[in-house]
């Protein structure tokens, strides 16, 4: 899916939270969205998913305005925070609901969940536990799983590695790499984990104070450059 942001401006009171003249995610591209706390990452993602109305500008998915045409929702899998979960459901109930939004029947849902068994072992987990009774990490896995198992054309994840134990982080990275290799699937992953993001994403968009500071292809030096950049940003913001 091709995603473009045109002349997006969002203010909270007098403060400009986001100012993006133009930004493009090509079909099949995997982009990492980086930035410090308050840089505008979540605002960026929420506007993209039409959960927040920008003061100016528009978001287009495959050329269609996301506010006017909701067709993109049937092709997008996203997980930003716990509000994406219905926490009084059990995991199977929730996944069944998500599957039904993609017209998947129970058998097909089961088949599509199989590759994720290592990430969230549904066969071993207590299926009668409500999502609200799960640990933060497991609840997050459910949200990520719900975004991915439906085979969406566009994946949007906010901080997917946070709160996950190290084995789960490694498995998730593998899953994202595998899915990214699928032609025609675009992904946008926001994270504070520079190592994971540079491992998975082919391009990095760096936000600071609502503005795009850098938008570069990843290479072997990207991680080091990002570390240097964030270290200097930390010094400048501290002074």
């Amino acid at each position: 899916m091709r995603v473009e942001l045109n002349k997006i401006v969002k203010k909270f009171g007098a403060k400009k939270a986001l100012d993006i003249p133009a930004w493009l995610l090509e079909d099949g591209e995997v982009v990492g969205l980086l930035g410090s706390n308050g840089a505008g990452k979540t605002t960026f993602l929420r506007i993209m998913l039409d959960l927040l109305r920008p003061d100016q500008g528009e978001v287009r998915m495959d050329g269609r305005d996301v506010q006017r045409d909701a067709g993109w929702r049937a092709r997008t899998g996203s997980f930003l925070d716990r509000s994406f979960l219905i926490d009084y459901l059990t995991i199977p109930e929730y996944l069944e609901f998500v599957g039904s939004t993609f017209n998947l029947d129970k058998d097909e849902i089961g088949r599509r969940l199989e590759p994720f068994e290592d990430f969230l072992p549904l066969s071993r987990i207590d299926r009668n536990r409500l999502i609200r009774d799960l640990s933060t990490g497991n609840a997050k896995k459910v949200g990520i799983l719900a975004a991915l198992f439906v085979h969406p054309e566009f994946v949007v994840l906010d901080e997917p590695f946070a709160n996950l134990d190290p084995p789960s982080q490694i498995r998730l990275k593998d899953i994202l790499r595998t899915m990214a290799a699928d032609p025609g699937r675009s992904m946008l992953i926001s994270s504070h984990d520079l190592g994971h993001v540079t491992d998975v994403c082919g391009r990095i968009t760096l936000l600071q104070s609502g503005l795009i500071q850098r938008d570069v292809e990843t290479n072997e030096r990207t991680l080091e450059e990002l570390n240097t950049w964030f270290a200097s940003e930390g010094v400048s913001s501290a002074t």
Partner: protein
Amino acid sequence: MTPSPVPGLPGAIRTYFLLARNQFRVSMRQMQSQQGWFMRIVLAVMMAYSAFILLTLGFFSAQLWPGAEPVLIVNRSLLAAFISLFFIRFLFQRTPRMKIVPYLHLPVSRPRLVAFFQAASLLSIHNFYPLLFFLPFWMRYVVQEGSPAGHLMWIGAVLLLILASHFANLLLRGILRQRAGLFYIWMSLFITTAFVDEAAGLGMQQRLSEFLFSRILSGDFLGLFLLLCFTLFVVIASTISLSRSIREPEGSAEATAASRVRSFDVPAEWGLLGQLVRIELLLMWRNRRPRHYLFISLLFSTLYLVFMLSAGGTFGGSAFAAFLGLFASGGFALNYGQLMFGWDSTHYTAFVSRNVPFHRLVQAKAIVLQASCLFLFVASLPLFVWLRPDLVPLHFAFLFYNAGITVILILELATRNRQRVDIGRSGGFFNYEGFSARHWLWFIPTALPPVLFMQVMHETPRLGLTILATSGLIGLMTTRWWTRYFAAGLTARKHIMLEGFDSRAG
């Protein structure tokens, strides 16, 4: 180091001062942020009108009951009046528990927190408006009878009753929150006792009231002492209940009981609509507050209805019958339905970020509300047949009216909800969270028209019922149209609702 804002004060007083200052700021912010000017004016007019009525009744009771002794009548009715006031409190008065929670992680003594919020809860309008009647009544009528000591003891007893009903309400809410089963047993026993007392013509409650307050007015200290003991009991019991409740883990930290996790399947051919209906039903079953709405509605449509239908000789008017018809099958839709979409506030994103068309969401909610009308209709039908067979046609007519019209009116309100309801943690029945003045005011166009209409049609009730049932049928047949209408509204208000649901203010 930041200097203390109130240096020199002893620890306890400093704590209470800081808590009082915080609560004052919270109240000011809530007043500024919650209501628009129009709502404030409407509420102010309604409050002024109610105050005027109460003051007039207090000063001119003799004109209200010509030839009778006002003090005797009031003494006879005092217990019943306070039981009624207690029910009003139970419907509308907040519990202080939710206010304490934000302080629990701070190094503040918990007993002090409980003591402060118990005392602060007394600043409730429910403790003041009864005085608008009782003070003028006391000054005009009571002081003309008995001794000066008796006058003071009588007004003291009224104040103790107000205090007792305040803390009894907090206690009962605590019991409802911690042991819902025990609450329902108590309520059932109470309603049954009241019913037997009324139906058997015993009048025990009136006799007890007259005996107690006449003795107090005559200067008998024993009656006042008994009241004082009861008040102390509910103050202490509610304080203990509150102290225990704040030690309990929040909903998310406690595993949900296995009986609540039982699930059910919906036919695969129902697709997304079936899933949405299931999600709505599970919402009711697995969350305490909506579940209480369900039980209370069921209680009204069965036990309480027995009481109301039996009182047909006293309240036999068309308007009252219409009121019964409206609530007997529509009680749940009216109570639960008005907070729909608000119930979803913590997970509304789960719907709007996915391929869930709004018309499907509205359709699922309408199906649940309409099914609740049918369910309560069936539950209460035997009572109508047994106690008031003449009202069975009315019960049928209101089934169609509620399913076809009341549900539409409720959804019109619900699709405009934008206040967050933290459903997993929002306690029990009639917690205020999610309510605004709009909800109270919307009750007027929702509940009054059929009642007034039946009053107007009291000479031709069959025609009135036929018109109501027909309008309901038309509402049912045009479901597709109004579902689209509400879906368009939800689309237009999507971002505002998300913003409101995301806000934890208030």
